[in-house]
């Protein structure tokens, strides 16, 4: 026996919406009482995709026995922004800004995971200084993320913004650092394949040091308000327990997995980057409930402060970018790679398949099929100069039997006439010519063709 309870429709009154009152969500019933022979009378509530909790758009059809959730059916897809399809249509580096937006609180670690996957695919190494900087930024992101999540947890428990305000106060300090380094508070787009985009200057490092030195005091204050708090403990202990076997089988990673007692932290398991050099512990929970997940994050923040102290103290000199990593004309061989790191929320991995193609080379290959008696000539544009790809494009032309002129000229003879093909220098100026050489010349897509004897 089940009764349908639907909210009564208000009488229409000049513009007051009445359409769609009976069906507020695509699934149909939104609140209804259900009788289950095992559980008695239950309430099925459709929560979302807009709901008061601060966890984004997500729809849950929950079946409640009082305050206990007996069954939950999730509905996804409300923020499916098809990063994969967009990635198919753009270059490798062009996908980097999209990775910022995957887990939008932690853009630095998303960037790093994608950079790791591409570096595995292309076989690129990263200089030591860049690895240290990546660790520093990842641990700052971890601090930011865990602080915010503790704030959001309290917000959803009903604290109405006070712990969140303290959390965001600290987040703002970290975002100031990110903004001065990468130009953006949240969507940093900072990691590159083979290193980082910009070398942090000395005063940035000094500010980071100040922030890290003061973070422990904030953590003490935060914990004093929350960890031993009677209401927090009553609301979160014993709630949402997850067993270790279920967590592993369901592919749960990160603090939620460690809260069930499974010692699985990719910083230790994979030992990527320079993490093996740092001395830090991995906190583990015992019950797998909400309180354990909260405590794991607090303890991880303290460990992150330790890692940051070590990284800032041991930051070596050197390049911030692998000089062999070319940004332009980046063409990994055909193959695939799966790269992963431990993001603040858990494992974040990217799986890339390359077919080894390069659109520029495809174009050059097509051009080389032209049948022209005097050969095919080309010259570099200013983009090749900026990207230090001039040698690459010359080598590619040579492979296809074409000539690329670099600040040089080539005399040509055709049917008794002589003329020359010139390429401009990087500044676009023509080289000096001997008297009697061609005076009229015009640019053909960057190369100039000069005709002798015409004034």
């Amino acid at each position, binding site marked *: 026996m089940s009764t349908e309870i639907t909210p009564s429709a208000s009488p229409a009154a000049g*513009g007051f919406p009445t359409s769609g009152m009976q069906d507020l969500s695509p699934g149909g019933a939104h609140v209804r009482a259900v009788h289950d022979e095992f559980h008695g009378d239950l309430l099925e509530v459709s929560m979302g995709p807009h709901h*008061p909790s601060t966890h984004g758009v997500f729809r849950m059809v929950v079946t409640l026995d009082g305050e206990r959730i007996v069954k939950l059916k999730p509905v996804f897809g409300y923020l499916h922004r098809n990063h994969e399809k967009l990635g198919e249509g753009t270059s490798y580096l062009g996908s980097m800004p999209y990775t910022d937006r995957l887990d939008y609180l932690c853009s630095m670690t998303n960037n790093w995971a994608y950079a790791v996957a591409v570096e595995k695919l292309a076989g690129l190494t990263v200089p030591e200084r860049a690895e240290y900087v990546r660790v520093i930024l990842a641990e700052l992101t971890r601090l930011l993320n865990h602080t915010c999540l503790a704030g959001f947890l309290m917000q959803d428990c009903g604290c109405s913004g006070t712990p*969140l305000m303290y959390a*965001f106060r600290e987040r*703002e300090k970290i975002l100031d650092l990110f903004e001065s380094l990468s130009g953006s508070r949240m969507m940093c787009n900072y990691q590159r394949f083979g290193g980082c985009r910009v070398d942090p200057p000395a005063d940035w490092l000094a500010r980071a040091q100040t922030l890290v030195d003061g973070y422990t005091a904030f953590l003490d204050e935060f914990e004093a308000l929350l960890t031993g708090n009677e209401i927090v403990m009553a609301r979160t202990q014993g709630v949402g327990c997850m067993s270790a076997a279920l967590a592993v089988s369901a592919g749960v990673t990160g603090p939620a997995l460690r809260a069930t007692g499974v010692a699985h932290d990719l910083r230790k398991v994979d030992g990527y980057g320079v993490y093996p050099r740092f001395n830090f512990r991995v906190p583990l929970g015992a019950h797998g409930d909400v309180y354990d997940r909260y405590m794991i994050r607090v303890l991880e923040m303290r460990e992150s402060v330790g890692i940051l102290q070590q990284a800032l103290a041991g930051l070596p000199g050197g390049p911030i970018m692998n000089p062999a990593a070319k940004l332009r004309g980046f063409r990994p061989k055909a193959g695939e790679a799966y790269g992963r790191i431990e993001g603040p929320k858990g494992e974040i991995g990217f799986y890339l398949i390359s077919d080894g193609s390069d659109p520029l080379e495809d174009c050059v290959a097509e051009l080389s099929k032209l049948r022209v008696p005097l050969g095919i000539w080309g010259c570099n544009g200013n983009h090749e100069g900026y990207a230090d790809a001039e040698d690459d494009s010359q080598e590619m032309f040579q492979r296809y039997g074409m000539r690329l002129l670099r600040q040089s000229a080539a005399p040509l003879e055709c049917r008794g006439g002589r003329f020359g093909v010139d390429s401009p220098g990087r500044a676009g100026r023509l080289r000096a010519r001997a008297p009697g050489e061609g005076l009229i010349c015009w640019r053909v897509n960057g190369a100039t063709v000069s005709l002798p004897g015409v004034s």
Partner: protein
Amino acid sequence: MDQIAPTTVPITDAERDELRRHGILLTGLEELYNWGRSRSVWPLNFGLACCAIEMIAASMAKFDIARFGSEVFRPSPRQADLLIVSGTVTKKMAPQVVRLWNQMPEPKFCIAMGACAISGGPFKQGYNVLKGIDRFIPVDIYIPGCPPRPEALLHGLVQLQEKMRGQTISGPDAPRHLRADLDCDCPIPEFGEHDLEPPQNDILFQPPASPVRTPKA
């Protein structure tokens, strides 16, 4: 009801200040009404994606949206004045956004915060991404950025307040909630086989007539 044409108040600012010093405020009904409305805009607790985090940051201590009157973010659309569409609106989410908009009582306003809400943003070529929420609901203020800084949101809010203060309370230019002849309900799109049906609200969404922008004379 007879329309009383507004007359110019034959009183100088100095005299007005003098009266105020004695505790007497002299103003017009429209000004008072708009001042009250614009200084107490309560947004809906509605965040979709990354811009929502900057919206929350705008409500936190460093930027503090409360000093502009948006003290509380209401969780229920029945109690909210402002819908800040912050984040990418996907086609799956679009009917729900329109439903929320319909559930908000008049006077209501909409701010499209961020590139995704304005036009689809960086995900514009997506098969699940709606190319701007103004395809289905009327937008008052557009705030560009990806994400816009909290200061940009505050600037947009101030612009909205200026817009509200400029509204008349009678006549043909009165806002929607003061006109009995307007139907404020926006039709809710349905899930079709390949796209939303209809893909846009043709009354609200009217792009310019030419594919390329002609230069001004």
